[in-house]
């Protein structure tokens, strides 16, 4: 089928259809509210729209938008490493959607960071106006900036195919292996560094979550997040954009889900194991009988051990539906873990009336950022060859 046929016969929004679809209305309301809160934040400062204070300088904009956002955008490096470095070509159709999700995820992380940091014109300051190159925050800034650039270049062939820029596209395609290796290195560095940032707060973070191995936990859990997000995104794409997919994509759908579920089950098993060893090494067993211990067990049993078992059963029984739901559970688990570390188990010694609860406008901005991502994803997937091979380049895939 030619690209024109794909685009013309199966538009995502047929011309006759009203613009007032439930999705458009809900997204529109969130974007309008987010835009208003954006003005309030950048004119009135953090105090005007957040409940942040000296005890909690980082709230959900860091815990959810940044920490969870970066982890969930790990699908790009996980998938491209599997296909291009480990040679698992049977997952090739998952690469472009994963790269796109990663690229949008990182772009939104940078946007969300502006809300927390303020003064957007100072974004390049880590590179030109400071002396703290030994700071972990500098390492995170450098890696995120470089990896966002790498993801943009990795994503660009799809845009170039759409725009008809064959020569430029062919040059970038030749860089695929280098970009993949660069992406894996940068991801290893900054995914772990995000965990390393909390090493500075051993007295603030609850001992069940604090560990000198936090960087390792963050990196391993980002692989789980990446694998789960690819399955989750793929199941949503097959539901809403199936008409945009070519036969290869449709044929490889189940294989991608089963393969990634099996990998996620193994990594979850390993993650659970190193977390238990971590408790033993720090002799934190006695905390498990406290209130925070119960919450820790909810995270470990409900969002690590359970998805591990369900992924394994799903891969074994070839149960696609179970795998889809498990991916949502695992994604929620990663979000919960990052929120536990950054917000819930942070300052655990403070009395409950001094604990941080996000302002509704903070939640509105987080929703705004996620909605921006969904709208951008829909815009790109309905126009560019993400879920199908462009007919002019089919022989090159």
């Amino acid at each position, binding site marked *: 089928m030619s690209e024109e046929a794909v685009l013309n016969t199966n538009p995502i929004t047929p011309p006759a259809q009203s613009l007032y679809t439930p999705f458009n209305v809900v997204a529109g309301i969130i974007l309008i509210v987010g835009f208003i809160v954006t003005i309030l934040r950048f004119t009135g400062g953090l105090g005007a729209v957040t409940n942040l204070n000296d005890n909690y300088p980082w709230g959900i904009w860091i815990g959810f938008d940044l920490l969870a956002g970066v982890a969930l955008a790990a699908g790009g490096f996980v998938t491209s490493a599997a296909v291009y470095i480990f040679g698992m070509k049977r997952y090739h159709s998952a690469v472009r959607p994963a790269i796109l999700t990663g690229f949008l995820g990182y772009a939104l992380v940078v946007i969300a960071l502006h809300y927390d940091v303020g003064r957007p014109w100072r974004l390049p300051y880590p590179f030109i106006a400071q002396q703290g190159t030994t700071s972990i925050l500098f390492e995170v800034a450098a890696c995120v900036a470089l990896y966002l650039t790498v993801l943009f270049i990795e994503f660009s062939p799809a845009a170039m195919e759409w725009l008809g820029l064959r020569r430029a596209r062919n040059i970038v395609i030749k860089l695929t292996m280098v970009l993949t290796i660069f992406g894996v290195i940068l991801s290893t560095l900054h995914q772990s560094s995000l965990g390393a940032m909390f090493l500075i707060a051993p007295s603030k973070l609850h001992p069940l979550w604090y560990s000198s191995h936090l960087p390792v936990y963050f990196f391993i859990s980002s692989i789980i997040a990446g694998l789960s997000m690819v399955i989750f995104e793929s199941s949503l794409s097959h539901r809403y954009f199936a008409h945009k997919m070519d036969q290869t994509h449709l044929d490889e759908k189940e294989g991608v889900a089963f393969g990634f579920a*099996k990998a996620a*089950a*193994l990594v979850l*098993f*390993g993650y659970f*194991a190193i977390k*238990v*060893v971590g408790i*033993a*090494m*720090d*002799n934190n067993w006695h905390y498990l009988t406290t209130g925070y211990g119960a919450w820790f067990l909810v995270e470990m049993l409900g969002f690590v051990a359970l998805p591990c078992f369900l992924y*394994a059963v799903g*891969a*074994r*029984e070839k149960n696609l539906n179970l795998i889809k739901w498990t991916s949502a559970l695992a994604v929620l688990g990663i979000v919960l873990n990052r929120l536990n570390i950054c917000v819930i188990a942070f300052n655990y010694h403070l009395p409950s009336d001094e604990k941080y609860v996000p302002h509704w406008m903070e939640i509105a901005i987080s929703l705004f950022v996620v909605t921006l991502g969904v709208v951008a994803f829909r815009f790109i997937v309905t126009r560019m060859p993400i879920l199908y091979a462009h007919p002019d380049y089919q022989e090159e895939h």
Partner: protein
Amino acid sequence: MEFYTLQEFLTYTKGIAYLLIVAILVSVTGFWLFLTDRDED
């Protein structure tokens, strides 16, 4: 469990950790078999 020296603490925690690692190595083998025994290839 009361500890009076670092030596006691490390002996105890490392001892538990090593036992756990042996248990994990055995259980990961079982988990791998559970995960793959229905594979066709």
